[in-house]
């Protein structure tokens, strides 16, 4: 946790702004039309197909658990709102297999040519065979299925309809956007990447995964591991790939961009450095490790303690990077005269949440709530039961604790005992967790390390740690918007001062990689699960 900054009060809603520009979460647009679909769309039936498809997609959206909570339906005749239970009735009726009379848990095929609805298991296929209607819309994902090919098929016109239906239901002013979608209608996101764009050369396929080691320059692994977690954080990467503000306005750019390498007191800039690291990682096809010289120089000018030849705490380095991102952003935005509030820097837009602490007076029961910025969750791993999991650490962090000192209540004015508890008020897109393995004994001036193994869930359900959790009426409810996916982990092995840091990172297709200085290797899920984590990075993943 960082101390409150002046901007923290104004931190709200920068996420939707980030999400608006991110591409849709599906790549269905890349599915090409099959020969059957192509020939149908060349006939007079074109418009009918599009109209029917649009209707079917509207239904498939109504049953999509990720979207349905954002939807408001009104009756055509009087504009009255349709209640959720009414809607469930309609859905159950509309999506019921014509032959076995079940909704098959909403997994059905809606025929493109007639009103037939058939279950996945059997009757969708049976109908296609018997009637020769070879296309049906899959109610689950809104895609067109071709029974002749036994495959999904798509067409740019159909894809546009699908995306605009989604965008329309999220576009309402009171619709909270929980997921990311492109605008889909005008600028088709599936633009032709093979076409030539001036000044742009496609990086090689081997480079775009960004799998590159970092050369150890003498106890620098505490920097390398953090750098890897940043370079493979999809949201941080997105910000750097679109960071025109910094690129065009920071006077330090030329020094980091190959013109010269004159980095001194005045030109040292962490954002420029990370920017060049991104370029290096994602465009150079060689497996050669990345050199840290410039980072060491830059970090030295910014914070002399960090760049000595001594092993440092990776977590402190992570905090240092975030603070630099923020101050670089402020500096450059001021130069460009577009300093906006709330702050759009990486720390504020990606990592910053809010923690609510409640103090309940034992005498009158009055609860006083205060909200503080939350950059990461520091979790104690002492005093836990045997074989603790991360959930036990979170339980301990949020549990109702009796304060040691007496508390003067602002309502009843009495000084008495009080209970305090912590809850997450606002979750950030990326949640960073530190397991407090290092203890410093003030009396002996000696540091020690706790090696307790903590079970780390690969996906984390934070529903009951949020301030809006309803303990009494729905204790087991799962808020699908509060589920987080583990995508990076930093592990510390060995002794306190002489140990070694290693990063584990998951790519977009679910494969884990181990980054051990200059060596990058595949890692299995089991290896990740059995690694003793120090820092954890979870990213929001609506399920």
């Amino acid at each position: 946790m960082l101390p409150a900054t002046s901007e923290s009060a104004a931190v709200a809603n920068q996420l939707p702004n980030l999400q608006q520009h991110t591409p849709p979460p599906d790549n269905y647009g890349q599915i090409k039309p099959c020969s059957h679909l192509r020939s149908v769309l060349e006939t007079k039936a074109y418009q009918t197909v599009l109209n029917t498809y649009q209707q079917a997609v509207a239904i498939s959206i109504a049953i999509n658990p990720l979207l349905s909570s954002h939807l408001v339906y009104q009756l055509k005749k009087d504009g009255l709102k349709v209640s959720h239970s009414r809607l469930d009735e309609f859905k159950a009726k509309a999506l019921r297999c014509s032959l076995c009379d079940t909704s098959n848990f909403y997994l059905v095929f809606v025929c493109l040519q007639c009103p037939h609805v058939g279950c996945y298991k059997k009757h969708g296929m049976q109908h296609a065979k018997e009637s020769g209607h070879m296309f049906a819309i899959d109610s689950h994902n809104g895609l067109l299925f071709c029974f002749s090919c036994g495959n999904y098929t798509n067409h740019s016109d159909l894809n546009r309809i699908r995306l605009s239906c989604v965008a329309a239901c999220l576009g309402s002013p009171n619709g909270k956007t929980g997921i990311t979608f492109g605008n889909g209608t005008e600028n088709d996101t599936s633009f032709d990447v093979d076409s030539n764009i001036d000044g742009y050369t496609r990086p090689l396929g081997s480079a775009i995964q960004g799998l590159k080691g970092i050369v150890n320059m003498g106890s620098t692994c505490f920097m390398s591991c953090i750098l890897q977690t940043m370079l493979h954080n999809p949201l941080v990467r997105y910000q750097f790939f679109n960071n025109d503000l910094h690129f065009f306005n920071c006077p330090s750019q030329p020094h980091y961009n190959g013109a010269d390498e004159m980095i001194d007191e005045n030109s040292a800039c962490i954002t420029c450095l990370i920017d060049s690291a991104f370029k290096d990682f994602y465009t150079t096809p060689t497996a050669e490790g990345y050199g840290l010289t410039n980072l060491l120089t830059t970090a030295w000018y910014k914070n002399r303690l960090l760049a000595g030849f001594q092993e440092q705490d990776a977590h402190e380095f992570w905090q240092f990077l975030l603070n630099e991102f923020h101050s670089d952003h402020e500096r450059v935005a001021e130069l460009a005269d577009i300093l906006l509030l709330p702050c759009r820097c990486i720390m504020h837009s990606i990592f910053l949440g809010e923690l609510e602490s409640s103090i309940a007076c034992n005498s009158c029961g009055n609860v006083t709530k205060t909200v503080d910025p939350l950059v990461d969750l520091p979790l104690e791993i002492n005093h836990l039961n045997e074989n603790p999991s991360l959930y036990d650490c979170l339980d301990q962090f949020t549990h109702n604790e009796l304060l040691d000192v007496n508390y003067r209540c602002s309502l009843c004015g009495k000084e008495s005992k009080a209970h305090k508890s912590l809850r997450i008020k606002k979750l950030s897109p990326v949640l960073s967790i530190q397991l407090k393995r290092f203890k410093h004994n003030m009396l002996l001036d000696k540091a020690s390390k706790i090696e307790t193994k903590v079970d780390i869930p690969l996906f984390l359900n934070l529903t009951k740690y949020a301030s809006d959790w309803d303990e009494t009426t729905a204790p087991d409810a799962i808020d699908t918007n509060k589920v987080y996916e583990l995508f990076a982990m930093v592990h510390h092995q060995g002794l306190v001062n002489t140990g070694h840091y290693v990063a584990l990172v998951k790519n977009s297709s679910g494969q884990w990689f181990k980054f051990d200085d200059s060596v990058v290797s595949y890692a299995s899920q089991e290896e990740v699960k059995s690694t003793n984590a120090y820092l954890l990075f979870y990213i929001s993943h609506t399920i």
Partner: protein
Amino acid sequence: MSDLEAIKAQIQNHLVDSGNYDVISKQLKLKLYECGWFDQITQVATNELKSAGGNVNFDMLLKSLKPRAEELVPSEVKEEILQKIRAYLDDTIQ
């Protein structure tokens, strides 16, 4: 439709209409995510697609993945969810 099928259909529709299906399937989904099952299946499917080199359609892929996917569900998860379904059935059917 046989009597058994009719009863099955009736139960299923009640399960869905009562909202119990949503609750149970959400819990199952979370469990499968937490234990890494989703990522495992993604890996298996990706590898399958790569080794087939484009000569595979959805039906074939599903056919080969389904038994393996079911097998990979940890037995604790299976048991926990089955218990929830049993509890629902005991509650509903008299």
